[in-house]
């Protein structure tokens, strides 16, 4: 079959280094991947095309890039799945949120420094055991889900928070952090969670699910971040806007069956946080003028006691 590619090119050494798109058309087989196509382009049509790849079987994690605007591994994306419905070219661009070095190659240095920042090594306490550290099989089995991460950076490429804030640790590093927080042999949970509770940590995630959608290994970074939030709250880190928000939300649903928006905002900031409260005033005033105010008195849904009962039952399961 005939396949068209449109590849974003960038050469920092050019006289005028500006990005451009080059188009290629070539005959490929139905079983070929996007990476097969790019390698053929490099080998037969344009030797200057720069890209990273190694294993060609979704193991090494080096070929993450944006294919039709979404991050993925070029080596496990079949051409037949990538050819747009309208018959247009397959658009190939470098991974996002990392600086382009040349064509499809991005600088992974910030990626690795964030992974390093979560201290991805075991920190046991107490005397060393005679033999090896023993971990229950169930725990390790659970962790294989995160350990499946191949550090490809697809999640980082498409993370909506990294798009506006370089300071965010990001999905891959936070998934890695979870791996150590959940490891039964590690004893640094509390200090790890304390650090993850800081600016740029678990609470900065918007829950946009981009990382869940694009991860080629089903690592579910967002799910891990949510689990870390829960652990942090359990560990006593409750004095953050995020933790207060989660608590206030849950309280509102538990007591009335649905959301009391006014109370939620106030409680999230902390009732004594005068500065944040004052900042809300212009928004409240604008909303009021526009006739956009939530009902002043929040009424419970009919049968709210049934919702409360569900809370009690499920929560008692956790304890029991």
């Amino acid at each position, binding site marked *: 079959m005939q396949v068209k590619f449109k590849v974003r090119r960038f050469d920092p050494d050019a006289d005028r280094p500006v990005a451009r798109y080059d188009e290629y058309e070539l005959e490929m087989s139905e079983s070929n991947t996007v990476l097969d196509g790019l390698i053929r382009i490099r080998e037969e049509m344009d030797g200057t095309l720069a890209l990273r790849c190694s294993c060609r079987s979704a193991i090494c994690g080096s070929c993450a890039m944006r294919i039709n605007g979404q991050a993925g591994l070029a080596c496990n994306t079949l051409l037949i799945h990538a050819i747009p419905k309208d018959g247009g070219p397959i658009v190939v661009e470098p991974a996002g949120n990392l600086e382009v070095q040349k064509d499809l190659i991005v600088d992974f240095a910030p990626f690795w420094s964030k992974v390093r920042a979560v201290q991805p090594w075991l920190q046991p306490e107490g005397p060393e055991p005679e033999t090896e550290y023993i971990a229950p099989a169930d725990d390790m089995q659970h962790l294989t889900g995160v350990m499946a991460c191949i550090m490809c950076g697809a999640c980082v490429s498409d993370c909506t928070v990294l798009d*506006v804030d370089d300071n965010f640790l990001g999905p891959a590093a936070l998934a890695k952090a979870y791996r150590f927080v959940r490891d039964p042999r590690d004893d640094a949970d509390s200090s790890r969670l304390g650090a993850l509770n800081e600016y740029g940590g678990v609470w*900065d995630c918007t829950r*946009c699910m981009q990382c869940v959608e694009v991860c080629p290994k089903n690592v579910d970074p967002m799910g891990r971040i949510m689990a870390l939030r829960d652990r942090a709250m359990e560990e006593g880190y409750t004095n953050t806007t995020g933790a207060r928000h*989660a608590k206030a939300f*849950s309280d509102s649903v538990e007591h009335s069956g649905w959301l009391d928006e006014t109370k939620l905002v106030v409680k999230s900031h902390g009732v004594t946080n005068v500065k944040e409260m004052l900042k809300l005033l212009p*928004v409240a005033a604008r909303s009021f003028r526009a006739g956009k105010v939530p009902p002043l008195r929040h009424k419970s849904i009919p049968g709210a006691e049934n919702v409360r009962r*569900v809370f009690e039952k499920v929560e008692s399961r956790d304890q029991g």
Partner: protein
Amino acid sequence: MPYAFYPGCVSRGACPELYAATLEVCRRLGIELDLTTMQSASCTGAGVLQEKNLRLGDTLNARTFAMAERAGRQILTICSTCQGVMSQANARLQDDDYRASVNEDLAEEGLSYNGTADPKHLLWVIVEEVGIDTLESMVVQRLPSLRIAPFYGCYIVRPSSDLKFEEHPEREDALERVIEAVGAQVVDFPGKTLCCGFPILTINETNSLKMVANHTMDAKGRGADAMVTPCPLCHLNLDGYQPQAAKANSPLSPIDVPILHLPQLIGLALGIPPKAMRLNSHIVSTKTMLSELALSP
């Protein structure tokens, strides 16, 4: 067969205009809504409750699904976040053992979920049940002068597996199809499936406002007169915080892109008066946009 109408918290709270517009539009499109079955249904948890306790969220949603099943109805929602959270819960609840165990906690109320719910957002009901052609045929005022940027947000596009995109490929560009059906022009922009910033508004306002500014300025730069969204939370942030987002990120010029709820856009084409859909109750004024249609808010 009427749908069990699940309005969600926001259309009954901070976005009453969405509620009003939905009832009008559904009446005209012949989508029957049963307003009572879901009255005692709880909040879906919006992903927030799920952070603390996934099973709790699933049990609350199983309760809602069981109520719809008991009434012999399918659920219609007008909130992308409700849709996404319900779809995710429903995917997990297809596991028979898990569902049976969740049902234990509903037994006292006499409820039990059998796994047959298929909650659908109004947007999906329009493209899948009403049909784009039918919608087009009911348009009384085409809107050719309007350039509309679609804004899906997150929950109605991801994770695509839970939302059954493979089974329903039409869900992928449903908003664009609706914009075309009402005779308006689609302004495509890459931010349409990204986050509006709402979930971190109270946590990291700077980032949240940047997201608002990026999306609205990009859409405006591409010529959009307005944006349309199926998610009231996206609306709250993109509309309600647009003035602040502009102040923080584009101090020299206001952004001023009105953010329409999906049924408001459809309603305009169906000839529903703007006032009935409370287009006058937005933070970013809809006046200029409506004047192009010779209407006023």
